[in-house]
């Protein structure tokens, strides 16, 4: 049986100027934009249809934990720059430095999840479950789906840091492309949070 050679797996296409993977990841992000777009649209629709937000009175910033969320914002932003640095290290041929920065990215992602866990468990402790009212329904659904994306990012980045690194020896350029694509996804997850944070916690 032959091995099928897929063109432009690594090298950019002469006309479009990008390899397949990068194009693919951008298309995936486009669909993610529509996924979160639908949730934001629903959020606006439900919120404008209610007399008070949160329904039981007060302000979002009083009901939710702004300091923790601010910390988490800083954590995600930092993990974005470490992700960029991990990719840049690959680009400059420095695998040990890549390991360092990628490790930092994953660690920060875990920090984010741990903080999120404390936020969630506090809410549950108070009986503020998603069923409590639509404020919490929106809060848990949107941050939960975003949290799942963080988990997905940890898995992808973990693969690149662990078994995936083997590709470096065979084809460093291909490996660098993969890191770049994982990075694009990771920055997108950061970007979603940048919108989630003010719209859920501050407004």
């Amino acid at each position, binding site marked *: 049986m032959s091995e099928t050679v897929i063109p432009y797996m690594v090298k950019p296409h002469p006309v*479009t*100027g*990008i390899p397949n993977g*990068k*194009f693919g990841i*951008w*298309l995936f992000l*486009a669909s993610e*934009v*529509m996924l979160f*777009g*639908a949730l*934001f*649209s629903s959020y*606006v*629709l439900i919120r*404008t*249809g209610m007399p008070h937000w949160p329904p039981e009175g007060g302000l979002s*910033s009083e009901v939710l934990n*702004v300091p923790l969320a*601010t910390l988490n*914002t*800083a954590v995600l*932003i*930092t993990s*974005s*720059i470490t*992700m*960029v*640095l991990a990719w*840049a290290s690959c*680009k*400059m*041929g420095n695998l040990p430095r890549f390991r360092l920065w990628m490790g930092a990215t994953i660690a920060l992602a875990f920090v984010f999840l741990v903080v999120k866990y404390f936020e969630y468990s506090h809410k549950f402790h108070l009986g503020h479950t998603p069923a409590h009212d639509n404020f919490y329904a929106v809060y848990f659904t949107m941050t939960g789906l975003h949290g799942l994306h963080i988990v997905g990012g940890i898995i992808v980045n973990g693969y690149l840091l662990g078994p995936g690194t083997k590709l470096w020896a065979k084809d*460093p*350029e291909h490996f*660098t492309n993969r890191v770049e694509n994982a*990075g*694009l996804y990771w*920055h*997108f997850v*950061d*970007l979603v949070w*940048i*919108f989630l*944070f*003010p*719209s859920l916690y*501050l*407004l």
Partner: protein
Amino acid sequence: MDAAQHEDVSKHMGQYYVVFVALLCLTAVTVGVSYLHLARPAAIAVALVIATVKAGLVAAVFMHLISERKVIYAVLIITAVFFAVLLLLPNLTTFEHHSGLPGT
């Protein structure tokens, strides 16, 4: 990796750090503004403008959108149009539904 690429990346390093600091500062600003308890429309405008600037920085610099290929711009423009449709039309329809009819 050839030397040109090497140089290319290291040239950008400074930019990355600047953006990183800017993002942290903007986060601080948006949280700070929220404690001022501005009027609703102003608060929404400020928060969304800051978020958009932050998102723009991440997309432009970290995701290299500032110097990306045409085909990706094309995909993103199409997506942006339909994203706007998705955000606007259901809400406009609902808004008119609630406000435009007698007896509702």
